[in-house]
């Protein structure tokens, strides 16, 4: 029995972990391209989810709405980078943080304004009937989330590894000057990076909404876990962010189950602790590398 509970908790931890991993990956992609920690990432995902919700309410079939939302999220992310973030590129960290917080607040209030603060249910595309393997029961949505996340990660990996565009984007992030000399449109690449990050975030939003329901503040807790995941894995490493996401998901679930005083009430504090401890013990995270600067 004990092992059943353990396995179930691990699987559902992996499912939430997949969501954290997606959002953490989005954060890392933006960080790598523009050295910005995008505090608005969660709200961008939330807004995309509302867009999907509107489409579903208008009678669009689920997977069509899913794809449509991804396209819109991509365009939205691209536009945000080109219009709002671009004027402050290269400014001090404080300026960038303030602009991102401004973006967070705008998206949050816009969602509240348009869709109200009432909590809405959001459908899951996966069947309801639980799946039994021996004595262990898995939620189909959990398994679906894991599959979708892994598939998306695989696609992203292939994109960045095997396509010219992916290579150009990595080059633009790593060395803008030389990339520009090679004829890469660096500005456009940064925009694409934001677009892709918004798309990845939108997937996270769509997958988490059936579990935590739809409302403008839904991503607050998820975002802090994504921060924890990105910090744990290393904010400079996409691979690390993914591993960190799954790890944090599992840690969260196991801590909630087996450490009595944590329960569900101190979950955000666990994320805070992970962030602070990682930053103290190993600021570069598990897979990150220290950034060396010439002064």
């Amino acid at each position: 029995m004990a092992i059943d509970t353990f396995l179930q908790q691990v699987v559902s931890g992996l499912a939430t972990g997949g969501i954290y991993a997606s959002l953490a990956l989005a954060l890392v992609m933006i960080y790598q391209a523009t050295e910005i920690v995008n505090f608005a990432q969660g709200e961008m995902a939330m807004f995309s989810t509302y867009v999907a919700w509107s489409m579903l309410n208008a009678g669009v079939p689920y997977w069509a709405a899913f794809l449509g939302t991804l396209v819109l999220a991509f365009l939205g992310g691209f536009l945000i980078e080109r219009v709002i973030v671009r004027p402050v590129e290269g400014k001090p960290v404080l300026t960038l943080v303030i602009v991102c917080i401004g973006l967070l607040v705008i998206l949050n209030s816009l969602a509240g304004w348009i869709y109200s603060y009432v909590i809405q249910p959001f459908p899951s595309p996966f069947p309801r009937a639980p799946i039994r393997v021996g004595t262990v029961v898995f939620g189909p949505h959990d398994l679906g989330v894991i599959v979708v996340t892994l598939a998306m990660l695989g696609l992203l990996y292939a994109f960045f590894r095997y396509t010219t565009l992916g290579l150009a984007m990595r080059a633009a992030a790593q060395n803008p000057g030389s990339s520009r000399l090679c004829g890469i449109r660096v500005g456009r690449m940064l925009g694409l990076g934001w677009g892709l990050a918004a798309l990845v975030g939108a997937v996270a939003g769509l997958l988490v909404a059936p579990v935590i329901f739809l409302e403008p503040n839904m991503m607050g807790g998820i975002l802090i876990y994504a921060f924890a995941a990105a910090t744990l894995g290393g904010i400079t490493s996409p691979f690390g962010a993914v591993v960190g996401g799954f790890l944090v998901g599992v840690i969260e679930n196991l801590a909630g189950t087996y450490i009595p005083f944590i329960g569900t009430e101190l979950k955000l504090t666990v994320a805070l602790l992970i962030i602070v401890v990682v930053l103290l013990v190993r600021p570069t995270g598990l897979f990150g590398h220290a950034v060396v600067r010439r002064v």
Partner: protein
Amino acid sequence: MPRGRAVGLGALLLLVLLMPFALSGFRLFQFTQVCVYAMVLLGLNLLTGYNGQISLGHGAFYALGAYTAAIMIDRWSVPYGWTIPAAGAACFLVGFLFGIPALRLEGLHLALATFALALAVPQILKYFDGWTGGSQGIVLSKPRAPLGIPLSPDQWLYYLALVVLLVLFVLTWNLLRSRPGRAIVAIRDNPIAARAMGIDAALYKSLTFGVSAGYTGVAGALGGLAVAFVAPDSFNVFLSITFLVGIVIGGLASVPGAIFGALFIQFVPNYAQEISKAAPWAIYGVFLIAFMYVMPDGVAGFLRRLAHRAGDQARPVRPAASTTPKGGQHAHT
């Protein structure tokens, strides 16, 4: 001081002193709140504007201050007057301790950690419900004026907040002009050069964090007394963002900016609320971004530039008062 300015300041002081006799209880409460917010903004500006450490979690220290006062009054029947310095001291200590790990976190990492702190606060407050009363919060009674002074509780609280604010203003001004103050600014402008000149950056950064948190704690205690109620959900992450809005609007690295910022975050949401529940935040967001584009030194910086352009040569521009990217004057002073 030129005569015109002295007259202006005198008139302003008179206005501020007479306000309690002209305004209704609620209006007066709003101005008490302005004083309270101005204290927070002074503290936050010391940390973020002058020392360059980004905190997105000052709501946490505000909550700590408010709860320290509330618990001392409610559980231990301590006279409220003692709870205000106690809240300041508690926050100074916690801020100083939080500052030690924060030292290793530069810029973005600190912003992340404090943002996480801000998000976690309501949960932590609810968790220790034996002390904090859980989500029900703690109800306080408004303190009466001592020694039989014929003032209503609202009027008394207003004067109390005003006096505390003035004391903190003078403290800040003096601190910034002292040797530690210059060290604080030097760490922001060029950490490596500051260290090379023998400034103990670690100590100063932690101390600045502590002092900043202490200011916020005092404000939290007064704010709790003014509202006469503390509850976990009023200390959410948006409170911390409100403070950030305050220093951006008022002016980063500007002492008088705290007043403009406090007026903004107290009154603008009130009026915007009439349009929609979400409108205040939409306005906050737009202002945050717009100020970064066109007025990065806030209202205070804007007024300073206006005065400068008007040929008011009697006012030297303080070196610390500029955060514009050009900032050439730092190097020459």
